[in-house]
């Protein structure tokens, strides 16, 4: 069964290391997102899997076969391009049938497969149109149908939703996931959009500076980030730099200066080490009154209030430091006006401390 295995893959662009010692195994039928900021190497990694970039070090195996140096046209891997890359001089049906045509399949076979692929993406009636006559979402579907028509061993998607508007993006995301399940194909999806990655994947691979930072189920990446890069890239966060003042098992007390001490959790912290404590903005609670007990209780004043519709963002000024808080726009949660006093508090287990 198709299984993709990258072993110690590196790619240099001149002196810069675009992909740094990437090792990754993706199981048959799995949907994995490569998530990271632009320039993190995720697209380069995808292009190496597709065969459009040479691999400087390491190897890529698909289904037990070493494909590291195999030319792209022999890899049997489908790729959906960010800007679709549909052939403008061919109709939708000709685009979808292209891969089968260059394989020398019979006309009857191609017609049948094209009809299946177009039905799969719900474009059955548009086969005779040209790409320029289609909307962005329809072009995206044609690109998907074209990649699937060759019955590839692996499906790669390079930020396929980034050119669509928000509503369409949500619909297409659902649809891609459904089609992938239906076909049962192994898929790798490159994106910089976290909610896209979380919504689609079985596992999310977070990359930054060419390195794989963490690969885990979406909830694990979100709840227990493995590194400061993951912790600060995922979600809206506050980060406090400081020094470890006390260690008690997994719980750590971090002195961030000015007599302020924050409790957090870390795997192996060392007394006196310079660290960063990271807490997600929605994990901070704002109350009018001081809570009876708990870690990290800081009286503060609302500096700015930003109304975002489904949530409200507060910038809170405590004595000696400030932080952001996101509160759901819901009457069950206390809301504040600019300049009002409040008490912020968060659990030590929501505050991750990184070396």
């Amino acid at each position: 069964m198709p299984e993709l295995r990258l072993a110690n893959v590196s790619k240099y662009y001149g002196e810069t290391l675009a992909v740094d010692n990437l090792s990754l195994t993706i199981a048959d039928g799995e949907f994995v997102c490569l998530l990271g900021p632009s320039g993190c190497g995720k697209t380069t990694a995808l292009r190496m899997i597709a065969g459009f970039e040479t691999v400087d070090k390491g190897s890529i195996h698909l289904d037990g076969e070493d494909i590291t140096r195999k030319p792209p046209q022999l890899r049997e891997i489908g790729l959906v391009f960010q800007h679709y890359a549909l052939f403008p001089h061919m109709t939708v049906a000709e685009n979808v049938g292209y891969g089968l045509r260059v394989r020398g399949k019979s006309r009857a076979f191609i017609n049948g497969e094209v009809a299946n692929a177009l039905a799969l993406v719900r474009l059955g009636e548009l086969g005779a149109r040209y790409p320029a006559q289609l909307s962005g979402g329809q072009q995206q579907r044609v690109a998907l149908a074209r990649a699937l028509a060759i019955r590839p061993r692996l499906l790669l998607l390079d930020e396929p939703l980034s050119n669509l508007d928000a509503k369409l993006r949500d619909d297409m995301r659902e649809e891609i996931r459904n089609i992938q399940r239906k076909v049962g194909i192994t898929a790798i999806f490159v994106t910089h959009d976290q909610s896209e990655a979380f919504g689609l994947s079985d596992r999310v691979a977070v990359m930054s500076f060419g390195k794989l930072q963490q690969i885990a189920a979406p909830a694990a990446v979100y709840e227990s980030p493995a590194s400061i890069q993951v912790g600060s890239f995922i979600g809206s966060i506050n980060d406090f730099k400081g020094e470890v003042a006390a260690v008690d098992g997994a719980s750590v007390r971090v002195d961030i200066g000015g007599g302020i001490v924050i409790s957090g959790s870390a795997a192996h912290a060392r007394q006196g080490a310079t660290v960063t404590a990271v807490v997600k903005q929605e994990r901070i609670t704002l109350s009018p009154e001081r809570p009876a007990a708990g870690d990290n209780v800081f009286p503060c004043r609302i500096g700015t209030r930003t109304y975002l519709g489904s949530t409200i963002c507060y910038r809170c000024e405590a004595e000696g430091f400030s932080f952001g808080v996101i509160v759901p726009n819901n009457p069950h949660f206390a809301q504040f006006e600019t300049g009002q006093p409040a008490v912020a508090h968060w659990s030590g287990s929501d505050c991750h401390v990184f070396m």
Partner: protein
Amino acid sequence: MREILAAGRWLYLIAIYAFVVGPMLFVCAASLNSAANFPANFDGITFKWYEAILKYPEFTRAAWVSALVALVSSIIAVAAAFLAGYGMFRSDRKESVVLSTVLASPILVPQIVLSLATLQFLALFGVSSGLAGLVAVHTVHSLPFALRLVLSGFSRYNFSLEEASANLGAGRLTTWWQVTMPLLKANLIAGFTFCFILSFVNLPISLFLTDARTATLPLVMFAHLEARIDPMLPAVASIIVIAAAVTTILLERYLRIRLVD
């Protein structure tokens, strides 16, 4: 004041058309003149000069030589321009600029020098020119023009289509045939037609490279002109002008291809 400007603009336009189109119309008219001299006062309409061409085997022979040289040199020039343009745009390296300048440089050399240089270059290897030398020099002369037209096509060409094609299982030749060339069709055909016409009518670059068997049409016309001036020359010229005009119009009309951007 405004009227004067408007009148000036009209004069300017008329002058341009008069000098561009006028001589060609004059040549066509002269080819139908029954007077035995050229130029001469108009004497009556006749097609005898066109018939006369057929009786001069050196004219028809030279026309075939010119057509063959133009055909082969234009195909080679466009193919070379396609490969060069593909490489330049695909690699995106700074050497591309140097390469495009080098390939365009024949345009800067006086054509008669190009002819003489080719003769000497071939003599260096003890090769007599023949048709091959003629085709070579015409190709070199056409290349800059072919390159300009083909490069303008590549500048609008989306190279991710090449990757899409490879990803779907096509080798490079299949991709060129199925994707690249169809999308650059207009530029390739325009380049070919332009080069063909340039080659067909060119006199100086063939000058030192022909013998009796390989004389091109412009050379034969020139030789004929030195011997005597009769309306047969305008007749030959008219055929060329009309053929070029018809080709250009057909290309624009039916393939929406413009020879000049």
